[in-house]
Protein backbone atom coordinates (compact mmCIF):
# COMPACT_ATOMS: atom_id res chain seq x y z
CA UNK A 1 0.00 0.00 0.00
CA UNK A 2 1.25 3.43 -0.91
CA UNK A 3 2.39 5.46 2.11
CA UNK A 4 0.60 8.75 2.65
CA UNK A 5 2.96 11.69 2.63
CA UNK A 6 2.80 14.83 4.82
CA UNK A 7 -0.51 13.80 6.25
CA UNK A 8 -2.26 14.83 3.08
CA UNK A 9 -5.31 12.90 2.17
CA UNK A 10 -4.60 13.53 -1.50
CA UNK A 11 -1.06 12.28 -1.41
CA UNK A 12 1.71 14.55 -2.76
CA UNK A 13 0.26 15.16 -6.23
CA UNK A 14 -1.22 18.53 -5.27
CA UNK A 15 2.09 19.70 -3.84
CA UNK A 16 3.99 18.87 -7.00
CA UNK A 17 1.32 20.49 -9.04
CA UNK A 18 1.67 23.68 -6.95
CA UNK A 19 5.48 23.61 -7.15
CA UNK A 20 5.23 23.15 -10.88
CA UNK A 21 2.77 26.03 -11.14
CA UNK A 22 5.04 28.27 -9.08
CA UNK A 23 8.00 27.49 -11.31
CA UNK A 24 5.88 28.18 -14.38
CA UNK A 25 4.72 31.46 -12.84
CA UNK A 26 8.28 32.46 -12.01
CA UNK A 27 9.30 31.73 -15.57
CA UNK A 28 6.47 33.88 -16.91
CA UNK A 29 7.36 36.69 -14.51
CA UNK A 30 11.03 36.56 -15.48
CA UNK A 31 10.11 36.84 -19.16
CA UNK A 32 7.77 39.73 -18.43
CA UNK A 33 10.37 41.48 -16.26
CA UNK A 34 12.96 41.14 -18.99
CA UNK A 35 10.63 42.74 -21.49
CA UNK A 36 9.52 45.35 -18.99
CA UNK A 37 12.37 47.73 -19.65
CA UNK A 38 11.60 47.62 -23.31
CA UNK A 39 7.91 48.32 -22.62
CA UNK A 40 8.65 51.00 -20.07
CA UNK A 41 11.14 52.94 -22.17
CA UNK A 42 9.47 52.46 -25.51
CA UNK A 43 8.78 56.23 -25.58
CA UNK A 44 12.41 57.15 -25.08
CA UNK A 45 13.45 57.27 -28.74
CA UNK A 46 10.51 59.61 -29.33
CA UNK A 47 11.54 61.72 -26.36
CA UNK A 48 15.05 61.90 -27.75
CA UNK A 49 13.76 63.27 -31.05
CA UNK A 50 11.75 66.01 -29.34
CA UNK A 51 14.73 67.13 -27.26
CA UNK A 52 17.27 66.79 -30.01
CA UNK A 53 15.35 68.47 -32.81
CA UNK A 54 14.08 71.36 -30.67
CA UNK A 55 17.60 71.99 -29.42
CA UNK A 56 18.93 72.13 -32.96
CA UNK A 57 16.42 74.79 -33.96
CA UNK A 58 17.05 76.83 -30.79
CA UNK A 59 20.76 76.87 -31.59
CA UNK A 60 20.16 77.72 -35.25
CA UNK A 61 17.93 80.61 -34.19
CA UNK A 62 20.60 81.87 -31.78
CA UNK A 63 23.18 81.74 -34.57
CA UNK A 64 20.79 83.54 -36.95
CA UNK A 65 20.99 80.60 -39.34
CA UNK A 66 17.24 80.68 -39.86
CA UNK A 67 17.41 84.26 -41.15
CA UNK A 68 18.43 83.10 -44.64
CA UNK A 69 14.93 81.61 -45.09
CA UNK A 70 16.70 79.02 -47.24
CA UNK A 71 15.22 75.64 -46.40
CA UNK A 72 17.96 73.69 -48.21
CA UNK A 73 20.67 75.54 -46.29
CA UNK A 74 18.82 75.06 -43.00
CA UNK A 75 18.37 71.33 -43.59
CA UNK A 76 22.06 71.00 -44.45
CA UNK A 77 22.91 72.19 -40.93
CA UNK A 78 20.69 69.64 -39.20
CA UNK A 79 21.74 66.25 -37.86
CA UNK A 80 21.76 63.40 -40.36
CA UNK A 81 20.14 60.86 -38.07
CA UNK A 82 16.68 62.34 -38.64
CA UNK A 83 14.60 63.24 -41.65
CA UNK A 84 12.96 66.67 -41.73
CA UNK A 85 10.24 68.60 -43.41
CA UNK A 86 10.36 72.37 -42.95
CA UNK A 87 7.89 75.13 -43.65
CA UNK A 88 8.62 78.83 -43.19
CA UNK A 89 5.89 81.43 -43.26
CA UNK A 90 6.91 85.11 -43.09
CA UNK A 91 4.80 88.24 -43.14
CA UNK A 92 6.56 89.67 -46.21
CA UNK A 93 8.28 86.71 -47.84
CA UNK A 94 5.20 84.47 -47.63
CA UNK A 95 5.15 80.69 -47.44
CA UNK A 96 8.30 78.71 -48.20
CA UNK A 97 7.77 74.98 -48.20
CA UNK A 98 9.75 71.86 -48.93
CA UNK A 99 8.39 68.86 -50.77
CA UNK A 100 9.46 66.15 -48.32
CA UNK A 101 6.71 63.64 -47.66
CA UNK A 102 5.87 62.74 -44.08
CA UNK A 103 5.83 58.96 -43.54
CA UNK A 104 2.65 57.48 -42.11
CA UNK A 105 4.20 54.58 -40.25
CA UNK A 106 6.74 56.35 -38.07
CA UNK A 107 6.60 58.53 -34.99
CA UNK A 108 6.53 62.11 -36.27
CA UNK A 109 7.65 64.93 -34.05
CA UNK A 110 6.48 68.39 -35.05
CA UNK A 111 6.70 71.84 -33.53
CA UNK A 112 6.30 75.47 -34.51
CA UNK A 113 8.34 78.45 -33.34
CA UNK A 114 8.36 82.17 -34.09
CA UNK A 115 11.53 83.85 -35.27
CA UNK A 116 12.65 87.27 -36.40
CA UNK A 117 14.55 87.72 -39.67
CA UNK A 118 14.04 91.45 -40.19
CA UNK A 119 10.41 90.42 -40.51
CA UNK A 120 8.16 88.25 -38.40
CA UNK A 121 8.26 84.60 -39.36
CA UNK A 122 7.18 81.25 -38.08
CA UNK A 123 8.96 78.01 -38.66
CA UNK A 124 7.18 74.68 -38.60
CA UNK A 125 9.15 71.48 -38.63
CA UNK A 126 8.40 67.80 -38.73
CA UNK A 127 11.02 65.22 -37.90
CA UNK A 128 11.31 61.45 -37.77
CA UNK A 129 13.98 58.80 -37.42
CA UNK A 130 15.61 57.64 -40.63
Amino acid at each position, binding site marked *: MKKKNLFLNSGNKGMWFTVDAIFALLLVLVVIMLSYNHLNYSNMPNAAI*TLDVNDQFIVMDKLNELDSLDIVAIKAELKDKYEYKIEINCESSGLINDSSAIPETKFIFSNEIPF*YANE*NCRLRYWSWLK
Partner: protein
Amino acid sequence: MVKIKKGMLLTLGLMLIALELLAFFALMNTKNLDSNDFFIEMYEYNELNTFFSVIEKNSQEIFDLSGMVVNVNQNNVIINSQVPNSNLNYYENEINSYYDFVETNFEYEFGRNNVTHLILEPSSVTSYVRGDNLFIINTNNTKIEFEIEDNITSCNWNTQPGEIKIEVDIKGQSGSCVETKFVDSEYLNNLNINSGDFIIYINESIRVKNNINPINVTATINKNDQKIALGANLTYLALNYNEAITILK
Protein backbone atom coordinates in the same frame (compact mmCIF):
# COMPACT_ATOMS: atom_id res chain seq x y z
CA MET B 1 -14.02 12.87 -0.72
CA VAL B 2 -10.34 12.77 -1.69
CA LYS B 3 -11.17 13.86 -5.22
CA ILE B 4 -13.21 16.77 -3.93
CA LYS B 5 -10.29 17.96 -1.75
CA LYS B 6 -7.90 17.60 -4.70
CA GLY B 7 -10.20 19.70 -6.83
CA MET B 8 -10.47 22.36 -4.14
CA LEU B 9 -6.70 22.57 -3.82
CA LEU B 10 -6.37 22.83 -7.58
CA THR B 11 -8.96 25.61 -7.77
CA LEU B 12 -7.40 27.44 -4.84
CA GLY B 13 -3.93 27.18 -6.39
CA LEU B 14 -5.15 28.44 -9.74
CA MET B 15 -7.00 31.32 -8.11
CA LEU B 16 -3.87 32.37 -6.22
CA ILE B 17 -1.81 32.23 -9.40
CA ALA B 18 -4.44 34.22 -11.28
CA LEU B 19 -4.55 36.84 -8.49
CA GLU B 20 -0.78 37.15 -8.48
CA LEU B 21 -0.69 37.60 -12.22
CA LEU B 22 -3.49 40.14 -12.07
CA ALA B 23 -1.71 42.16 -9.37
CA PHE B 24 1.53 42.04 -11.33
CA PHE B 25 -0.07 43.27 -14.56
CA ALA B 26 -1.94 46.00 -12.66
CA LEU B 27 1.38 47.17 -11.24
CA MET B 28 3.04 47.11 -14.63
CA ASN B 29 0.17 48.96 -16.22
CA THR B 30 0.41 51.71 -13.60
CA LYS B 31 4.14 52.02 -14.17
CA ASN B 32 3.66 52.15 -17.89
CA LEU B 33 1.06 54.90 -17.50
CA ASP B 34 3.49 56.81 -15.27
CA SER B 35 6.09 56.44 -17.99
CA ASN B 36 3.67 57.86 -20.59
CA ASP B 37 2.78 60.75 -18.28
CA PHE B 38 6.46 61.45 -17.81
CA PHE B 39 6.96 61.48 -21.56
CA ILE B 40 4.03 63.87 -22.07
CA GLU B 41 5.23 66.18 -19.29
CA MET B 42 8.74 66.18 -20.67
CA TYR B 43 7.44 66.87 -24.17
CA GLU B 44 5.34 69.80 -22.96
CA TYR B 45 8.17 71.21 -20.87
CA ASN B 46 10.54 70.94 -23.81
CA GLU B 47 8.04 72.63 -26.13
CA LEU B 48 7.62 75.53 -23.67
CA ASN B 49 11.35 75.77 -23.15
CA THR B 50 11.89 75.95 -26.91
CA PHE B 51 9.19 78.60 -27.30
CA PHE B 52 10.57 80.84 -24.56
CA SER B 53 14.16 80.37 -25.72
CA VAL B 54 13.34 81.68 -29.17
CA ILE B 55 11.14 84.49 -27.78
CA GLU B 56 14.01 85.56 -25.54
CA LYS B 57 16.51 85.45 -28.36
CA ASN B 58 14.20 87.24 -30.81
CA SER B 59 13.40 89.93 -28.25
CA GLN B 60 17.10 90.46 -27.69
CA GLU B 61 17.70 90.66 -31.45
CA ILE B 62 14.97 93.27 -31.81
CA PHE B 63 16.22 95.08 -28.71
CA ASP B 64 19.53 95.56 -30.54
CA LEU B 65 17.63 97.78 -32.99
CA SER B 66 17.19 100.30 -30.16
CA GLY B 67 20.91 101.07 -30.29
CA MET B 68 21.07 100.58 -26.54
CA VAL B 69 23.85 98.35 -25.31
CA VAL B 70 23.71 96.48 -22.03
CA ASN B 71 26.80 95.00 -20.45
CA VAL B 72 26.92 93.17 -17.19
CA ASN B 73 29.86 92.44 -14.94
CA GLN B 74 30.19 91.10 -11.45
CA ASN B 75 29.23 94.34 -9.73
CA ASN B 76 27.42 96.49 -12.26
CA VAL B 77 24.96 96.76 -15.09
CA ILE B 78 26.28 99.17 -17.68
CA ILE B 79 23.74 100.73 -20.03
CA ASN B 80 24.83 102.79 -22.98
CA SER B 81 22.47 104.85 -25.10
CA GLN B 82 22.26 107.87 -27.30
CA VAL B 83 20.24 110.69 -25.70
CA PRO B 84 17.98 111.47 -27.49
CA ASN B 85 17.73 108.06 -29.12
CA SER B 86 16.41 108.24 -32.69
CA ASN B 87 16.17 104.42 -32.95
CA LEU B 88 13.61 103.97 -30.21
CA ASN B 89 10.50 104.45 -32.34
CA TYR B 90 11.66 101.89 -34.88
CA TYR B 91 12.57 99.44 -32.13
CA GLU B 92 9.24 99.97 -30.40
CA ASN B 93 7.31 99.38 -33.64
CA GLU B 94 9.29 96.24 -34.42
CA ILE B 95 8.98 94.67 -30.99
CA ASN B 96 5.27 95.43 -30.77
CA SER B 97 4.79 94.01 -34.25
CA TYR B 98 6.69 90.88 -33.22
CA TYR B 99 4.62 90.45 -30.06
CA ASP B 100 1.41 90.98 -32.06
CA PHE B 101 2.60 88.31 -34.48
CA VAL B 102 3.34 85.82 -31.70
CA GLU B 103 0.08 86.55 -29.90
CA THR B 104 -1.88 85.99 -33.11
CA ASN B 105 -0.12 82.82 -34.20
CA PHE B 106 0.88 81.14 -30.96
CA GLU B 107 -1.96 81.90 -28.56
CA TYR B 108 0.33 83.56 -26.06
CA GLU B 109 -0.32 86.89 -24.40
CA PHE B 110 2.52 89.22 -23.52
CA GLY B 111 2.51 91.73 -20.73
CA ARG B 112 4.28 94.44 -22.63
CA ASN B 113 4.03 97.75 -20.86
CA ASN B 114 7.07 99.88 -21.41
CA VAL B 115 9.00 97.73 -23.85
CA THR B 116 11.68 100.41 -23.92
CA HIS B 117 12.37 100.04 -20.20
CA LEU B 118 15.21 98.01 -18.81
CA ILE B 119 14.35 96.85 -15.34
CA LEU B 120 16.51 95.31 -12.65
CA GLU B 121 14.68 93.00 -10.28
CA PRO B 122 13.91 92.86 -7.42
CA SER B 123 15.06 96.45 -6.78
CA SER B 124 12.95 97.76 -9.72
CA VAL B 125 15.74 100.06 -10.84
CA THR B 126 14.48 101.12 -14.24
CA SER B 127 16.36 102.77 -17.05
CA TYR B 128 14.90 104.30 -20.18
CA VAL B 129 15.35 107.15 -22.63
CA ARG B 130 12.51 109.50 -23.39
CA GLY B 131 13.06 112.49 -25.63
CA ASP B 132 16.12 114.43 -24.48
CA ASN B 133 16.23 112.61 -21.15
CA LEU B 134 17.80 109.48 -19.77
CA PHE B 135 15.96 108.30 -16.68
CA ILE B 136 17.22 105.91 -14.04
CA ILE B 137 14.48 105.31 -11.51
CA ASN B 138 14.86 104.02 -7.93
CA THR B 139 18.62 103.99 -7.97
CA ASN B 140 20.91 104.84 -5.09
CA ASN B 141 24.35 104.14 -6.51
CA THR B 142 25.00 105.14 -10.11
CA LYS B 143 27.79 106.49 -12.23
CA ILE B 144 27.00 108.70 -15.22
CA GLU B 145 29.58 109.13 -17.97
CA PHE B 146 29.53 111.00 -21.23
CA GLU B 147 31.73 113.01 -23.49
CA ILE B 148 30.73 116.21 -25.25
CA GLU B 149 32.04 117.82 -28.41
CA ASP B 150 32.55 121.23 -26.76
CA ASN B 151 34.69 122.35 -23.90
CA ILE B 152 33.40 122.13 -20.39
CA THR B 153 33.20 125.69 -19.16
CA SER B 154 31.21 125.21 -15.98
CA CYS B 155 30.19 122.41 -13.65
CA ASN B 156 27.93 123.62 -10.87
CA TRP B 157 26.54 121.36 -8.16
CA ASN B 158 23.46 122.21 -6.15
CA THR B 159 23.05 119.46 -3.57
CA GLN B 160 22.12 118.58 0.00
CA PRO B 161 24.26 115.88 1.64
CA GLY B 162 22.62 112.48 2.09
CA GLU B 163 22.82 108.75 1.35
CA ILE B 164 22.36 108.58 -2.43
CA LYS B 165 25.66 108.04 -4.22
CA ILE B 166 26.16 109.68 -7.61
CA GLU B 167 29.39 109.63 -9.52
CA VAL B 168 29.86 111.68 -12.66
CA ASP B 169 32.63 111.53 -15.22
CA ILE B 170 31.96 114.05 -17.96
CA LYS B 171 34.66 115.00 -20.39
CA GLY B 172 34.81 117.83 -22.89
CA GLN B 173 37.36 118.62 -25.58
CA SER B 174 39.00 120.51 -22.79
CA GLY B 175 38.01 120.39 -19.19
CA SER B 176 36.06 117.76 -17.32
CA CYS B 177 33.58 117.33 -14.54
CA VAL B 178 34.57 114.35 -12.43
CA GLU B 179 33.19 113.96 -8.93
CA THR B 180 31.48 111.62 -6.50
CA LYS B 181 28.77 112.96 -4.19
CA PHE B 182 26.39 111.63 -1.58
CA VAL B 183 23.14 113.54 -1.80
CA ASP B 184 19.80 113.74 -0.02
CA SER B 185 17.02 111.84 -1.80
CA GLU B 186 14.36 114.24 -0.47
CA TYR B 187 15.96 117.20 -2.19
CA LEU B 188 16.04 117.75 -5.97
CA ASN B 189 19.82 117.93 -6.29
CA ASN B 190 21.26 118.89 -9.63
CA LEU B 191 24.43 119.29 -11.59
CA ASN B 192 24.42 122.01 -14.22
CA ILE B 193 27.05 121.76 -16.95
CA ASN B 194 27.87 124.59 -19.35
CA SER B 195 25.08 126.82 -18.09
CA GLY B 196 22.22 124.47 -18.81
CA ASP B 197 23.53 122.55 -21.84
CA PHE B 198 23.32 119.43 -19.69
CA ILE B 199 21.57 119.09 -16.36
CA ILE B 200 21.61 116.02 -14.17
CA TYR B 201 18.78 115.90 -11.62
CA ILE B 202 19.27 113.58 -8.70
CA ASN B 203 16.93 112.42 -5.95
CA GLU B 204 15.57 108.86 -5.71
CA SER B 205 16.01 108.84 -9.45
CA ILE B 206 18.43 110.32 -11.90
CA ARG B 207 17.48 112.29 -14.96
CA VAL B 208 20.15 113.31 -17.44
CA LYS B 209 18.76 116.12 -19.57
CA ASN B 210 20.54 116.98 -22.78
CA ASN B 211 19.65 120.36 -24.24
CA ILE B 212 22.00 120.33 -27.23
CA ASN B 213 23.31 117.72 -29.72
CA PRO B 214 22.82 113.99 -29.10
CA ILE B 215 25.35 112.50 -26.73
CA ASN B 216 26.29 108.96 -25.90
CA VAL B 217 25.58 108.41 -22.20
CA THR B 218 26.83 105.48 -20.15
CA ALA B 219 25.08 104.70 -16.88
CA THR B 220 26.75 102.23 -14.55
CA ILE B 221 24.24 100.93 -12.04
CA ASN B 222 25.49 99.09 -9.00
CA LYS B 223 23.69 95.82 -8.45
CA ASN B 224 23.32 93.21 -5.78
CA ASP B 225 22.42 89.86 -7.28
CA GLN B 226 19.51 91.17 -9.26
CA LYS B 227 17.94 90.07 -12.51
CA ILE B 228 17.45 92.11 -15.61
CA ALA B 229 14.24 92.25 -17.64
CA LEU B 230 13.05 94.02 -20.73
CA GLY B 231 9.67 95.65 -20.24
CA ALA B 232 7.67 95.79 -17.05
CA ASN B 233 5.78 92.52 -17.27
CA LEU B 234 8.02 90.38 -19.42
CA THR B 235 9.10 88.35 -16.45
CA TYR B 236 10.20 85.43 -18.60
CA LEU B 237 12.92 87.69 -19.93
CA ALA B 238 14.32 88.08 -16.46
CA LEU B 239 17.84 86.82 -16.62
CA ASN B 240 20.48 86.44 -14.04
CA TYR B 241 23.57 88.45 -14.68
CA ASN B 242 25.70 85.66 -16.04
CA GLU B 243 23.03 84.77 -18.57
CA ALA B 244 22.52 88.41 -19.39
CA ILE B 245 26.05 88.61 -20.67
CA THR B 246 25.23 86.19 -23.45
CA ILE B 247 21.61 87.07 -24.00
CA LEU B 248 21.49 90.81 -23.82
CA LYS B 249 24.93 91.67 -25.06
